[in-house]
């Protein structure tokens, strides 16, 4: 009974699979739980939605490789198609940036819900039962460190100088603590920024997901992983 009650609420966990490609191993990340409320709004906005996906491979408890993919999506308001740019491309033979058009949003969601990172490892890396772990992070509409500095300045523009004239009058009552009224609402975005632990130029974004560090199973022969053309 308990199982039946819990089952509908269970969330599919992110999946990592590895596939042999000649002497190399590709890693496919799938079943990412996407921020659907935000994406439903963003994808049809006519503005570009940027998604950055990172895969980090950890071997012998040190970072072995880091890989990044970037997807940019813009809905054409007149042709009513989604233009999707992806870099680097999924296949080695494709141009530097792959551009595709999709009529349906579901097709776009499929693209951004699964990532294939090519030639991440060598098959020999798995020899001797080597413990290889991976972690995946995904940022929707990333905000750079440079932008963070700008945000600080914009926040300052809403402040009012905090001169406390009561001092001169000999009045002992405390001055108003917060010259702006309350900065409570300002904190949400800043909290996100300051909580971020990314070391790259990208510090945070509208939505950030980081998977737990997961052991990567030894590769199987290629079965045509997701996102491949």
């Amino acid at each position, binding site marked *: 009974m308990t199982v039946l009650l819990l089952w509908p609420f269970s969330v599919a966990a992110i999946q990592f699979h590895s596939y042999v490609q000649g002497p190399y191993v590709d890693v496919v990340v799938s079943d990412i739980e996407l921020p659907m409320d935000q994406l439903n*709004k963003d994808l*049809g*906005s*006519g*503005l*570009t939605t*940027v998604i950055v996906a990172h895969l980090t491979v950890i071997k012998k408890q040190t970072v072995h490789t880091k890989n990044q993919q970037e997807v*940019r*999506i*813009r809905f*054409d*308001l007149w042709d009513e198609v989604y*233009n*999707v*740019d992806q870099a680097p491309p999924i296949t080695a033979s494709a141009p530097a940036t792959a*551009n595709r058009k999709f009529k349906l949003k579901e097709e776009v969601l499929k693209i951004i819900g699964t990532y294939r990172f090519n030639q991440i490892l060598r098959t020999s890396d798995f020899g001797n039962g080597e413990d290889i772990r991976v972690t995946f992070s995904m940022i929707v509409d990333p*905000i750079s460190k440079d*932008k963070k500095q*700008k*945000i*600080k*300045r*914009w*926040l*300052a*523009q*809403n*402040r*009012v*100088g*905090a*001169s*406390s*004239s*009561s*001092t*001169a*009058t000999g*009045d002992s*009552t*405390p001055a*108003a*603590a*917060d*010259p*702006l*009224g*309350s*900065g*409570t*609402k*300002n*904190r*949400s*975005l*800043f*909290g996100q920024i*300051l*909580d971020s*632990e990314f070391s790259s130029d990208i510090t945070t974004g509208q939505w950030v997901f980081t998977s737990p560090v997961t052991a990567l199973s030894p590769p199987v022969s290629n079965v045509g992983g997701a996102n491949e053309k």
Partner: protein
Amino acid sequence: MKQRIRKLLSLQWILTVGLTLGISPSAFTQDRADATTATAATLEPLILSAIECSGNTNTDCEILRREVHLQVGHPVDEEELENARIRLQLMGLFRSVSMSLKKGAERGQVIVNIDVVEGSPWFSETSIEAHSKNRIALSYKLGHRNLFGTGKILQGSFYPSSVLDRIDGTYNLYLEYIDPHLFGSQNYFMKTQLSGYFDNRDKAENYVSTRKYGSFGFEFGRRIFDFSHVAIGATVSESEIIRRDELTDPFEETRYTSSNYSFNYGWDSQDDPYFATEGSTFDANLYQYKERYGRGDFLSKQNFSLDAKNSLALYFNGSYDSTVGLSGGSALEWNHQFRRGLSDASITSSKLFLKPAVSQSAHNELRSARLELGAVFDTKSFGIIKLSAYSGMNL
């Protein structure tokens, strides 16, 4: 040391020239987004034909448009639209802000729609301070941050100390009107303040002393560089002291009028007024203060006050942080702040703080020490709540 003096002089020089000319050096002014992003959006340039608003039931659309630094008839710069979205979010008036495009009259022409979900414009702050000598001070602040739908602030503070403390019979009332963007300007701000004070704490069987005080002040300021401001202000006040001593001096009444003119320079680069994790604040005030007893002549004196507070944030495991700072030149402040653990509960943020302070009076040899221990909570239902206890002693 010489280098420091040179730096200070050069800063003063830049400040003077900048103020005189009414400009800020470009290196310090707000960066305007200049990027035209290389995106999927480069398929065809989109031309802005109009800016519309939705969801703004209480806020004037002009307030929203003001933050979008794009002109109708020019290409849409997505980077600038994203910047505008963040700027609007930082105003503290909206729960969420999103931008979208709609088809314009012709192909390639678009209308930018700014969709907002307005937050409550009301905010409050409650503070309870307990002193080791059985005294309890209470203060309450209530404010509206979006007056007339234009982002102006009206806030009132009430300090009814006698509610919780039978010894302290003082009442303070402050009413402030703040315009953070005077005439829509990004740089100019204005504050006016009305305050009243009533004190009848000295009560005995044959002796009563009451003091009434009222003042009106205004301040006009300009933001300079990234985080600094300068301001000039004036305050006029009138006080009345009545003493009635039935044993020695049956009745005494004193009235005096005072006025002061102030010049203020300061900066504030803290990321949050209550839960700062980085940045610093500095405040320097120069006053000319005049007072007149009854119908006598005005006596004038100059005062200079300085307040500096620097915060250094130290992070531990990303789940909490400690901050140390100097305040008022005499108080060492230590904050221990929890940010993540309570984020999903009814408390958005909280912190514990410990403030040891030693102060030396400028007028006499009196030196005192004070230790304050407290906590600040940002609650979803009751706003900011501050609880603290302190103890002080003369050294």
